[in-house]
């Protein structure tokens, strides 16, 4: 039988086995994949903003890292990735991390309700501080999950560092018991995005062709420290919803010739707002005013920009030049009954304050209606700008106030004398709350950062939806704007989201300790086998009661 003959073969096999291994093992190692095991934790993470404005870099400049995770208190070198809750990190700590740490991973709060107003304000200020300058280390944000809570707790309570433990034994025990985390994001280097900002506009023609034009404009993008998580409910889903609702109301009024108002009304939705200096409005104005066929914006009565109008039920009129008594802006102001906030345009600033300044620069009467008192309000660019029921109520009220003021200006009514007229008036100008709610919820459920909405095709995504919505009421034109090739006004970078792997690891010393333990165990086994015959003799004697016969 072949197996009996195989003894010689077996000898050869036995003799050469170690040498075979010397060759085979490296081949195995080369052949097997680099990272053969899936991590125990995988998370979706969102990268911080990354853009250049007028070639000045802002935000996080890199995307991939492979570093050991540490807590806010225990990190020390650039080989550590700091993992923290966003509400725990102070601005000073961020500045230190920015200059020294290898990477930063911030976990967003579970939801808004767990935050105190102070914490919210702190997060908004932190966001502003983060976006001010460039950060060379990768900065990622993650949504809260229970797994993250565990990792955060582990990182806060376990110290793998040697200096934290008293004795050598304690240090050894620490290395065995503690969990380390290796945090890995493999993403390609951020590429420049091909950004195509657009402006959607449509016009309701007034009674006579030569009459004046009223422009109602809002930007519909959002801005926050994390592009993928910028819901921008107040800034500026509320403004965009208001433009849509006003378009609906006035298209009904303008549809019958008898009640058509004098001036034409032009509705404009711009795709880039305050975060990138109202680039869409700027380009759109250039195109409309500087082209040979400049009929659209020939005789503008006033430009009304709507920005962040859902945080309170009242509004402030922001102007760059106090309205003259008797002018159109003054008429609207008195009809709205709002206070005026006057702020001169400062061209030396990096960013313009409000969208109306783009129009004021082109010598138009322009103002912005906003619930915010100041353009510096940090809630305009925050990840915490999320939709709420109260905001919808405020928004509906503000739209109603605006519609009423606008209508009374268009039809030049002084005041409503009798109740019947007022009822008719209310009916004609009624705000459809369901539609406002729908649009508000839709827009604030979408991440509308410039990185996202200006890189999709113009007829897709949020832009496409808004275009179709506006085209139900009037003829709509979508104009795409190009960024200057040589001196780009802004540059956006990709890699907005990625997958984060968290590996639980042990320090290198741990393997040495494990080796010692295994060697100790194996020597016990060795002696057990060596002593086995003697043990068997004793045992047999015990079992059979007789000594073994030889």
């Amino acid at each position, binding site marked *: 039988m072949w197996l009996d003959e195989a003894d010689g073969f*077996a000898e050869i*096999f036995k003799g050469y086995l170690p040498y075979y291994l010397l060759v085979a093992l490296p081949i195995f190692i080369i052949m097997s994949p680099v*990272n053969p095991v899936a991590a125990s934790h995988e998370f979706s993470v969102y990268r911080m903003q990354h853009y250049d404005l007028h070639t000045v870099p802002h935000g996080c400049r890199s995307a991939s890292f492979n570093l050991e995770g540490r807590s806010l208190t225990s990190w020390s070198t650039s080989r550590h990735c700091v993992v923290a809750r966003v509400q725990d990190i102070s601005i000073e700590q961020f500045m230190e991390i920015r200059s020294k740490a290898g990477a930063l991973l911030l976990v967003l709060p579970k939801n808004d309700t767990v935050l105190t107003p102070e914490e919210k304000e702190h997060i908004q200020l932190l966001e502003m501080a983060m976006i001010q300058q460039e950060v060379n280390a990768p900065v990622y944000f993650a949504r809260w999950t229970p797994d993250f809570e565990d990792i955060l707790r582990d990182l806060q309570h376990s110290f793998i560092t040697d200096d934290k433990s008293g004795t050598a034994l304690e240090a050894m025990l620490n290395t065995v018991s503690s969990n380390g985390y290796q945090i890995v994001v493999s993403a390609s280097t951020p590429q420049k995005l091909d950004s195509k900002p657009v402006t959607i506009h449509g016009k309701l023609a007034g009674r006579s062709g030569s009459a004046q034009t009223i422009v109602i404009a809002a930007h519909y993008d959002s801005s926050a420290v994390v592009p993928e998580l910028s819901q921008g409910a107040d800034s500026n889903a509320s403004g965009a919803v208001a433009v849509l609702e006003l378009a609906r109301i006035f298209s009904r009024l303008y549809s019958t010739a008898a009640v058509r108002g004098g001036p034409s009304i032009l509705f404009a939705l711009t795709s880039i707002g305050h975060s990138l200096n109202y680039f869409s409005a700027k380009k759109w104005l250039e195109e409309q005013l500087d082209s040979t066929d400049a009929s659209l914006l020939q005789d503008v009565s006033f430009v009304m920009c709507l920005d962040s109008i859902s945080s309170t039920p009242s509004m402030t009129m922001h102007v760059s030049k106090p309205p003259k008594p008797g002018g159109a802006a003054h008429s609207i102001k008195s009809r709205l009954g709002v206070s005026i906030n006057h702020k001169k345009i400062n061209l030396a600033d990096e960013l313009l304050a409000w969208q109306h300044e783009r129009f004021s620069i082109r010598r138009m009467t322009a103002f912005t209606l906003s619930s915010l008192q100041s353009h510096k309000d940090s809630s305009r660019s925050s990840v915490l700008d999320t939709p709420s029921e109260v905001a919808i109520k405020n928004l509906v009220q503000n739209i109603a106030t605006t519609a009423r003021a606008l209508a009374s200006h268009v039809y030049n009514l002084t005041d409503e004398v009798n109740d019947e007229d007022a009822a008719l008036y209310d009916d004609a100008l009624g705000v459809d709350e369901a539609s406002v709610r729908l649009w508000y919820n839709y827009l604030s459920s979408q991440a509308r950062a410039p990185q996202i909405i200006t890189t999709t095709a113009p007829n897709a995504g949020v832009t496409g939806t808004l275009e179709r919505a506006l085209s139900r009421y009037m003829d709509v034109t979508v104009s795409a704007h190009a960024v200057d090739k040589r001196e780009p006004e802004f540059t956006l970078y990709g890699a907005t989201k990625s997958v984060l792997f968290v590996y*639980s690891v042990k320090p290198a010393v741990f393997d040495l300790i494990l*080796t010692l333990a295994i060697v100790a165990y194996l020597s016990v086994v060795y002696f057990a*086998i060596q002593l086995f015959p003697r043990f*068997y003799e004793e045992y047999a004697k015990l079992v059979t009661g007789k000594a073994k*016969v030889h």
Partner: protein
Amino acid sequence: MTLYHFGNCLALVYAPYHMAYKFSGISEYATFSKCVYAGGLYIFTQLCKMLLLATFFPDSDNSHITGEYNVFLEILKATVDFADLFGLYLALNSVPGKGHAKILTSAIGWASAEVLVTRSVLLWVGARGSEFDWRYVRACAESNVALVSAGASAALVWLWTRSDLPRRLAPGVLALLLLQPYRALLEDALGAALALSAWALLALRAAHAAALALASLAMYAVLAQQIGI
């Protein structure tokens, strides 16, 4: 974690088998090919068992999804493990020599094949990854326990094949042999009932294997005394 960690695990698995082969004296019989033969029989037995399970038992993947645990079905499945005892019997028959050499050779061959088939891929894939998990170290330690219990099983099968087995030992051997396929199931059940941690379960398995090994060693000693080996 690293290749070094993989080396650690490998040492924990391989060294006890190597020592059992080298220092138990069976290597003097030049029975390496017999070990390989026993290993081959192990693989063949497993294939037969898989064929049986696939043919006569409902798809076990579905029960994983629904999360149901059918005790009766599990017991029936464990019954198929009687094939292991038959495989061991064949292995014992093919090895020439004295009783202890037969037992050790087939047990080592059998257990080595088991480790090779069930653990090597897991270790190669798992222990080398950057993720650290105690379960690889545990799996390695478990394979040592498997060697002991394979030895005990082989001893029991050998005892049963002896026609000169003392009458008073026969019931004990038969009872332990009949219990053999259900041992893993019993261990799991006990672990689940006591809500044992993975390490405690490993200790339970080790204690169980040691107890079984001592019991079969005692019966072997009695028989050896009688026939004078």
